[in-house]
């Protein structure tokens, strides 16, 4: 009964820079079922971020097939993609990427401003999300008043507040100390295990990989065979 969330075939991405070109991804095949927690590993520059961006529709492949949640993401217009991401995809970055002039509460509420929810309903969602990441007592703090770990948890709350199917995290623990990193990974694990979120996490931290259900290695733009 598991359905396919991500289906990729023969996907390549070539960055054209003036005269020379960089093949960031080469002939990638990848399938991800609903409920999986995929950990993408690999050295810096191996194409992890690029792959994540393409799956989320914030970058486009040069060639190949790509279906995410049944949609041909590569063919969608930017505005449709924006709406699609708002509904289906949550994103967590390495740098916490909160809007500095907004409080934790307002940052989490941001994606909901695009929905038709009433402010009462929005408040319910925001508080639930912040509670899930354990920050219900920090809602009126501004990003600069939070620790790195707390900021990243706000970012996670923002990513899940619209209740997306797919959660993307690009080195979410990269800038965190070990303790904060563990907290963030725990939250992601809980989201996967208890809330059945499909997660793709990029990391080059081997400890992080323990939380995943599948781990794949990227190297120089190529996905190594399973178990490699």
């Amino acid at each position, binding site marked *: 009964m598991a359905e396919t969330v991500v289906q990729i075939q023969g996907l390549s991405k070539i960055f054209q820079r003036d005269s020379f070109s960089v093949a960031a991804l080469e002939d990638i095949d990848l399938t991800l079922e609903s409920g999986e927690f995929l950990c993408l590993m690999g050295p810096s520059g191996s194409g992890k*971020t*690029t792959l994540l*961006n393409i799956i*989320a529709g*914030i*970058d486009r492949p040069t060639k190949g097939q790509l279906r995410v949640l049944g949609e041909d993401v590569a063919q969608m217009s*930017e*505005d449709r993609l*924006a*709406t699609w*991401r*708002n*509904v289906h995809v949550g*994103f967590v*970055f*390495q*740098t916490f*990427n909160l*809007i*500095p*002039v*907004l409080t934790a509460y*307002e940052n989490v509420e*941001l*994606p909901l*401003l*695009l929905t038709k929810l009433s402010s009462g309903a929005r408040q319910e969602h925001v508080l639930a999300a912040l509670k899930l990441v354990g920050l219900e007592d920090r809602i009126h703090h501004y990003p600069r008043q939070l620790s790195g770990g707390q900021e990243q948890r706000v970012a996670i709350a*923002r990513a899940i507040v*619209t209740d997306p199917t797919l959660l993307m995290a690009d080195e979410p623990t990269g*800038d965190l100390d070990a303790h904060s990193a563990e907290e963030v990974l725990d939250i992601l694990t809980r989201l996967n295990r208890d809330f059945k979120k499909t997660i793709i996490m990029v990391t080059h931290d081997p400890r992080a990989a323990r939380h995943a259900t599948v781990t794949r290695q990227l190297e120089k733009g190529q996905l190594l065979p399973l178990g490699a």
Partner: protein
Amino acid sequence: MWRLILKNLLRNKRRTLLTTASVAVSLFLLSALAIVYTALGKPFEGVDTVPIMMVRRAAGIVFSLPARYQDRLKAVPGVVAVSKLSWFGGYWRDPANQFSNFAVDAETVFDVQTGGVIHPDQLAAFKRERIAAVAGKRLVDRFHWKIGDRITLLGSPYGVTPELVLRGIFTGGPDDHFYFHWDYLNEAMGRLNIVGMYWIRVDPVEAAPRVAQTIDQMFRNTDAETKTESLSAFLLGFVSMLGNVRGIILLIGSAVTFAILLIVANTMAMSVRERFAEAAIMRTVGFRKSHILGIFVGESLVLTFAGAVVGVGGAKILFDGLALRQISQFVPADMRMRPETLLFFAALSLGMALAAVGWPAYRAARLQIAEALRHTG
């Protein structure tokens, strides 16, 4: 969305404040210039160029001449008509009703001022009656007067309030002028026998320079020396000088506008550049290009309009309060802010806000999300 705009403006309070203040000051200056500019544009409609000459005190326009000069002027070869002309400076009913009113020699004023055409019966009625007055057509239309109306001139610096009856209407010439009997004024003032100036008509026109010389020579070394000049040339010179002034005002105005544009554009460019990454994040969580554009444009609008309200509003309050009604004795001008001017500034502010933010906002909205995110952290 509005909250987002306001929060972003408050992000850097000092910058927002400085920018708004600069816009306010610049727009205040621009408003003042605009008021003068429009005021200067109005007063000279209908100035006529007939060769009338003006004899005034050499010491300056504010000094008067003896009334007895009239006969001596008349005797100068080339002079065909002479009329006394004392600027009176009254208003009708309300200080807002300013217009050019003069005490003149009813017998001769239309011999000198041939540009104004009046029906002979009306002219005769004017000459006959001591309290009679005549007014130009434009003025009559402005105040909806009709022949027979009683008109009392208030507020004159001479401290008398002539009660007059309108007996005639002339067209052409200085048709915003109002004339009444100098004799009447003279009596009311206790027979001081002084005149602001004389208007003389010279024929042939070519005689004008010689006539001027003769007259001024004639009164040299008296205690009321004269200066005779061509009235039309005087006005024309003045008009063309004002034309230059308007040109300069336009130039300064454009420079100020450009300066405001630079100020706002600089602030917005900085503000947008700092937030490319944020724009990318917002796009990632589902905001569209148009949302991003809207937020930046909204910020620019709020910034510019806040400045405009303070600057233009301040100018309006100040100038309407001062209620200046003339630029000089002969140049009535309404120095209040007109509705068109307000409308102009609303449009200008809108234009500037858009021009200032257009390019950076467009870039921020268009940016490749992946690219923008890569350059953060």
